[in-house]
C-alpha cells in the first residue's frame, strides 16, 4: 500500500479564540467601523459591540471559512446598524477653497464632525494615511488606483476636511 508522504499544504491557523480575535483584528475592526461612521467615539462603540458579538458567536467564528472576512462583515453590519440608529448631526457648512491647515489647539468635537462629514471614500484615504500609516504606494494598491490619482484624492479629502472644520455650522 502506498502512503502519500508529500508535505501537505497547511492553511494558516486562523484566530478564533476571544483573546486571539482581539489581538489580531482589533485595528482592522476599528478601521472598518471608522470608515463607515466617521466619528472616532462611534467607531470605538461599534468596535466594542463587534467584539462582544464575536465573543457570543465564537462557534460560528470558529467554523467560518475565513475568520477575517467574517469578523469584518460583523464589524460592517454593526457599524451600519449604529449609523442608522444615530441621530444625524447638523451638517457643517463648508468653506469652499483655501482653508488653512487644522492647527493646535484643535476643537475635537468640530474635527470629529468634519471627519463624519467626509464621504466614505475620502475617509478611507484619510484613514489609510493617518491611522494605518500606509505609504502612497500601499494606498494605491489598497484602493485600486494609481499613485497619482491617490495623491490628488487625498489632497482633495484633506481640503474638504479643512473646509468643513473651518466652515462653521449652518
Amino acid at each position, binding site marked *: 500500500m502506498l502512503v502519500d508522504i508529500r508535505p501537505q499544504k497547511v492553511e494558516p491557523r486562523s484566530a478564533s*479564540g*476571544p*483573546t486571539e*480575535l*482581539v*489581538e489580531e483584528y*482589533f*485595528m482592522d475592526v*476599528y478601521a472598518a467601523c*471608522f470608515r463607515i461612521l466617521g466619528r*472616532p*467615539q462611534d467607531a*470605538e*462603540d461599534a*468596535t*466594542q*459591540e463587534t*467584539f*462582544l*458579538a464575536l*465573543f*457570543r458567536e465564537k462557534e460560528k467564528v470558529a467554523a467560518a471559512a475565513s475568520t477575517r472576512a467574517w469578523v469584518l462583515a460583523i464589524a460592517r453590519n454593526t457599524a451600519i446598524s449604529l449609523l442608522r*440608529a*444615530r*441621530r444625524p*448631526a447638523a451638517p457643517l457648512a463648508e468653506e469652499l477653497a*483655501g482653508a*488653512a*491647515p*487644522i*492647527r*493646535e489647539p*484643535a476643537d*475635537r*468635537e468640530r*474635527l*470629529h464632525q468634519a*471627519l463624519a462629514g467626509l464621504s466614505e471614500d475620502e475617509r478611507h484615504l*484619510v*484613514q489609510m*494615511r*493617518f*491611522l494605518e500609516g500606509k*505609504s*502612497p504606494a500601499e494606498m494605491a494598491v489598497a484602493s485600486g488606483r494609481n*499613485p497619482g490619482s*491617490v*495623491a490628488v484624492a*487625498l*489632497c482633495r479629502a*484633506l*481640503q474638504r*476636511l*479643512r473646509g468643513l472644520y473651518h466652515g462653521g455650522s449652518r
Partner: protein
Amino acid sequence: MSHPDLDRLTSWVHGLSDEDLGAHVEGCSSCRETAEGLREEARVVAREIGSPERLAALKAGLLQHAGGRRRSLRGLLWQIPVAAAVLIGLVAVLLSPRGRHRITDGRVALEDGSVVAAPIDLASAKTWQLHAVEPARLRMSDRSTVELAAGSNLSISPGGRRGVQASLSSGRATFSVAPDARLLTVCSPAGRVEAADGKFDLKIVAEESGGTPMKSVLAGAIVTVFAGSISLSNANGTVEARPGQSAVLARAEAPLFLAAPQDKQEELLRRLEELAARVAKLEGEIAQLEQKNKQLKLQLSSNAGPGGAVWTTNPGQAGGVRVIQSGPGGAAGSTIIIEENKVELKTPEKK
C-alpha cells in the same frame, strides 16, 4: 520660483509627489510656516482618528472581557502583553477625562432648569438630574452609553460598583453597558437592573388614575434585553433575562417575563390552524346535511308516503310555504319539511 499652492505643499509634505520643494520651502518663511502647519495637521488628525490612549484602553477592556470568558491555561508569555495592555488602559483611564460624563447628542435640562446642548462634559463626582428636552445620548464615566427618549428623567450619581449608577424615574432609555467585571446598576421606581455588559431598554410605565386633573401613577417598568445577560430584581425576587426576552418589574410582584413575540406568533398560528380545521369539518357536515335534505325533498315530493301529505299555501306565488310530511302526524320516524316557495317575480314591462 513662485509659491506652491496648498495642494502642492500637501503632496510634498505627505510624500505624495516627486516634486522637490525642499529648497524653496527652506528659503521661504511663508511656505515653511504652511508646511509646518500641514505637519501639525497630520499629527492632530492622526491623534483624533486613532488616539493611542483611547484605543489601548478599549483593547485592554476587550482583552479583559475575553480573558474573563475563557480562562486560558497559557503561560506567562501570553499574560504579559495582556497585563501591559491593561496597565496602559489603566494609565489612560487616569490621564484621560474619564472622570466625566459626556452628553454627546441632543439637549437636556438640568436640575436648575438650564438647558444644555451636546457636546458637554459633566463632572462625575456629583449627582445630575437630567431631563431630556429632545432625544439625547449620554456617555457615562464608565463608558456605558444611554440613549434617552424625549421627556425622560434620568439621574446619574457617584456610587455602585462602577463608581457610577443611574436611575430612570420616567420615560424610556436604552443602555449599552460597557464591558466590565463590575456590574452597572440602573434603578427604576419598580426595581433595579444590573449588567456587566450588553444592551437593554428600560421603559417606565405609568397609568392614568381618575380625577381632574388626571394623576399619573407608576404601574411598573418594562425591560427588554438586546444583548448580554441582565439581572432584574426588586424586593420580591430576581430573574436573569437573556437577549430577546422582556420582563416587567412591578412593586408588588416578582419580576415577570413577558411572552416573546415569537411565542405569540406561534400561539396565534396554532389557534388559526385549529380554527381552520374546525371550519373545514363544519363545511363537510353542512354539505352532507344539504345532500341528505335534497334527497329527502325529492323523495317526499314524489311520494309523501302512507299517511303523509303535502300542503302548499299560495301556490305559485312568492311567500307561500310548502309543508311535506312523510308519515302520519305525530308518528315516530316521520319527517316534516317546511320550505319557502321561491317564485321568481317578473317586473312588469313598461309600455
